[in-house]
């Protein structure tokens, strides 16, 4: 009966919480309702609504890739009333979930191509789900180039995982590059000495200077703030990557997640879309057809 109420959430339990930075926490949850858990299928780039009774809900990207029925991970920035309270949860606490929602990245369409993954700040959460999916299905994809831009060393999300991939990613045919904006960041300077060919000071687009020749047949996956997209798109243009092969995930206010509530509306008379249902992943070609998307 509950399935008839698409806005009704299901019960889950927090199984791990861990600070990744001062403002961002990793929250791992386990779905507790058997019917919901056994039917829960998601793809990279999809999101859920996480909520607390009496407080409300927030749309959050799933940052893992699905193998089976393992726990779900979220990278949550403490930025509003719901996320602030989620940050206060500890192991064993109840959290409510509905979804998954959105189209996600078209992983099947990207098969056979080299991938350029570009993430800025918190935008790494959905991009990480793509990376994990690729690592789980490594033979289906070509070379992976991962460009990640952060402000400072302290703000690197999934730091251990990222640094490990930077040092040892070549074994998996994944080349990870890191940029930092803060010019006086000591920890980064040390890292830059160690991996000077993978590390630079500046915005994420500066990393295109380090990568060497990237194939124009690559597919690009973008996660980050809209401002970053404009600059990244210029770089992808120089590589002659076709607009339909550039995939970007968008943020908007979302209340329902199912294309009803209207908050995430984008586009014009000829291209109205709801980011929650028609997105959150759009190609650059779609963005060119939807005024104001980026």
């Amino acid at each position, binding site marked *: 009966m*509950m399935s008839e109420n698409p806005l009704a959430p299901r019960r889950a339990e927090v199984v791990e919480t861990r600070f990744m930075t001062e403002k961002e926490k990793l929250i791992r949850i386990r779905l507790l309702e058997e019917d919901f858990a056994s039917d829960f299928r998601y793809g990279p780039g999809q999101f859920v609504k996480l909520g607390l009774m009496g407080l409300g809900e927030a749309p959050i990207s799933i940052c893992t890739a699905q193998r089976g029925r393992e726990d779900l991970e979220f990278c949550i920035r403490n930025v509003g009333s719901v996320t602030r309270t989620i940050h206060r949860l500890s192991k064993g606490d109840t959290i409510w979930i509905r979804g998954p929602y959105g189209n996600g990245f078209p992983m099947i369409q990207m098969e056979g191509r080299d991938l350029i993954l570009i993430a800025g700040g918190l935008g790494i959460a959905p991009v990480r789900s793509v990376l994990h999916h690729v690592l789980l299905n490594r033979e289906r994809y070509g070379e992976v180039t991962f460009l990640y831009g952060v402000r400072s060393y302290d703000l690197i999300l999934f730091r251990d995982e990222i640094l490990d991939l930077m040092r040892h990613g070549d074994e998996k045919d994944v080349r990870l590059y890191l940029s930092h904006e803060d010019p006086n960041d000591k920890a980064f300077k040390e890292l830059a000495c160690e991996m000077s060919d993978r590390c630079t000071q500046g915005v994420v687009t500066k990393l295109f200077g380090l990568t060497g020749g990237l194939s124009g047949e690559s597919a690009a996956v973008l996660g980050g703030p809209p401002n970053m997209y404009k600059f990244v798109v210029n770089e992808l243009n120089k590589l002659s990557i076709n607009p339909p092969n550039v995939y970007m995930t968008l943020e908007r206010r979302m209340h329902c997640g199912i294309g009803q509530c209207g908050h995430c509306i984008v586009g014009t008379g000829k291209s109205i879309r709801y980011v929650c249902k028609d997105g959150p992943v759009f190609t650059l070609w779609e963005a060119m057809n939807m005024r104001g998307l980026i």
Partner: protein
Amino acid sequence: MHLKGITVDLKSGLYRTLSKDELGSFFEGLKRHGSVYGPVKISEDSHAFRKVDDLAQMDLGYTRTLIPPKKFFIKPREDIFLFDEEEATFKEPPPDQEVVVFGVHACDINALNLLARVFLEDTPDRYYRERRERTLLVGLSCVPDENCFCRSTGTSHAVEGFDIFLNDLGDKYLVRVGSMKGYGAVMDGNLNLEEATQEDLGKYKAAEAARDGLFKRSLDVNGLQTYLDLSYDDPLWKEFGDRCLSCGSCNLVCPRCRCYDIKDYINLDTKTGGRNRLWYSCMLGDHGLVAGGLNFRPTTTERIRNRFNCKGSLREGLPNCVGCGRCTVYCPADIDYVEVMKRVRGEEP
């Protein structure tokens, strides 16, 4: 819907007539299908769908109600569920009572047809479905005033989406049956309906043609989607944005606007509460605001442009405006929908 004791006749039944003298008893008969709501004059220049016990309480010559009949299917504020924090459970509110909504005009029925696409298709909403099932919708023909332009939006006639529709033919109504539920209601012998004759059907066509001639406003919606797209940077949005008060009245009175907010509340016991769904407005300042303070439509100019683009789109396969004229009539800043769209088209308003 069970048709106990009613003989189904393949040759007839879907077009019948009702003498105006019998309207009172027809109205009384409808009460058996639920509490009846109809158009009531509530002030000098506005009407509302209110609960009525008697035919005389209604003003059947009304043009438009302030609030459209969407309120019967998506409540201005309603519980999605009620929760009990201590027991970590929640429950859904019980279904509403059966109602009859009497005297709904073609534009509003067409508006409900779009809402049905939004709330009943991809992810069906239980509350919308239950309320629609518990409603007997009785349409009524109307006479356009100077703000009606439903003929332009293709919504001046309701083909479907009603249970029964009454078309005024002078001394009688042509009764069109639009659903099984409506069929059950009209086949009920107590309602005194007669089979429509060829003459009645001819009168209907003449009445429709005469009504078509009464429209004073028109708007060419052909290709409007492209006009809106290429007017994205047009200064007209700033011009109207500067006039707009961002009050959101246009959204509340629009029969096709269905934006909503989801908000939780906690009762004074601090243990129980609920999650509300409430009507919301794309003209309010925080409609596009995300946590952290980024607002995707921070100015009135951006919000009014978004509203008109939404209205002119065919996102749900139907135009998002039914030409009812409400947003123009009730706008406190006198922003005229047709004028704005004509400016978008580059026409003299």
